[in-house]
């Protein structure tokens, strides 16, 4: 996934005050962090703010990173996850439980990658349908409890292995597997209910 030596060197340069090294780190990880934030928070605006906060926190605490304790990506994801949990707790009072039918995605700037790349073969209807499905799944994901949501996002959207997820979430691997399965099953139930209503 990442060359440990290269990343460790990059971090050392950055701690020494090399702005180019920091820029490289930002360029490398902004996409991943933004996606985690977007899928967890559910809103593009929140995701942008949160991603920015993650990098600010990372910049301040970069000197504390110890490459012998784990991969840099795991460290970065742990920071992201902690910040997301804090954000979730802070906004708990303000949160409203929207219906899955409501248009959930106010994503103006960010678009699915599949739409960024022009697909000549796919008809417009299919693309619209694919986007609608994506939005519905995204809304259903936002309905999951934070414990199940974070586990599912890290496993199915970020392709982390169980050990890495266990490190990030600070729970045993068995718990991670259980949460992932419960999250997937809950998501399927929510989507089945939604589509049954639509039909």
């Amino acid at each position, binding site marked *: 996934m990442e060359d440990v030596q290269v990343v460790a060197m990059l971090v050392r340069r950055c701690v020494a005050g090399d702005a180019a090294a920091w820029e490289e780190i930002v*360029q490398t990880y902004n*996409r991943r962090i933004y996606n985690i934030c977007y899928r967890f928070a559910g809103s*593009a605006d929140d995701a942008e703010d949160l991603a920015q906060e993650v990098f600010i926190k990372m910049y301040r605490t970069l000197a504390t990173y110890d490459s012998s304790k784990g991969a840099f990506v795991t460290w970065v994801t742990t920071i992201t996850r902690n910040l997301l949990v804090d954000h979730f707790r802070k906004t708990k009072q303000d949160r409203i439980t929207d219906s899955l039918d409501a248009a959930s995605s106010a994503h103006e*700037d960010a678009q*699915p*990658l599949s739409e*960024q790349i022009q697909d000549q073969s796919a008809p417009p209807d299919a693309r619209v349908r694919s986007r609608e499905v994506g939005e519905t*799944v995204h809304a259903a994901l936002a309905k999951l409890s934070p414990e199940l949501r974070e586990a599912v996002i890290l496993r199915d959207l970020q392709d982390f292995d169980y050990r890495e997820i266990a490190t990030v979430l600070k729970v045993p691997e068995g718990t991670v597997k259980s949460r992932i399965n419960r999250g997937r099953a809950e998501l399927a139930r929510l989507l089945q209910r939604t589509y049954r209503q639509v039909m």
Partner: protein
Amino acid sequence: MPDHTSNGMQCHEFDGLVSDALDGALSGSRLEGFQAHARTCSVCGPLFAEVTAGRNWLKDLTEVEPPVSLVINILASTTGVDTQRLRANVSPSLSMSQQPRVSFRPSWWERAQAWASGAMQPIWGTVRQPRFAMSFGMAFFSLSVALSVLGVKPADLRSVSLRPAAIRHTYYNTQARVVRYYENIRFVYEVESRVRELKRNVTPAEPAPAKKEHKNDTTQQPEQKQDRNYSQNENHLILACAPLGPSVFDPLNQDPLNPDLPVVSVTTYRRFV
């Protein structure tokens, strides 16, 4: 989850193997046992179907593209560097994988800015807090009100001399102006006069100090003279006595040591104005 055995596998055991089964990590007899349990168990079978469906739904979710301004904002908020070069390189039409990966060497100015930003980060972090901003705003407001009350204008500050003597002079001037202002307030003046009046009424009259005659004290002379002059009538007679001058002196008849000077009385009417 009910824990019963079906096809040699318990439900909790099945639950632990769901992830491995979906990841394709099961094989041989273990996989067969798992599949057999899923077919026969009324709880685990539907659960496995739901988990599989959920995972397939999630596979439909594609990665989203972050906003083009994200990297610029992050760099601006961390290192404080917001370069045109970076803006030019972030093209909205290109995805990250399509963008050329060029390692830039920052200029000495950017490096200096980054260093200064790093050094000022803790201070700046404190300053940016809302409560600090509120306190600063209140202090600024109070200062501006105080200055306007004192009559200080920003335009006057340009001509202010900062020499020590000038500062001292300004200080005394200001002090005098403040004292004058204070004493000229009608209310203060009235209070002070009342206090003086009360003091005068309460304190017994002191005996007049004995007049000392000072030989050389001429301070009272003009008044005395005036008194004397005004006390006289305008037709008052003044006797003037003057010795005769040398022209009337006869050296042949008179002893020079004992001259018998003739006395001439002259009466004049003098009118004092």
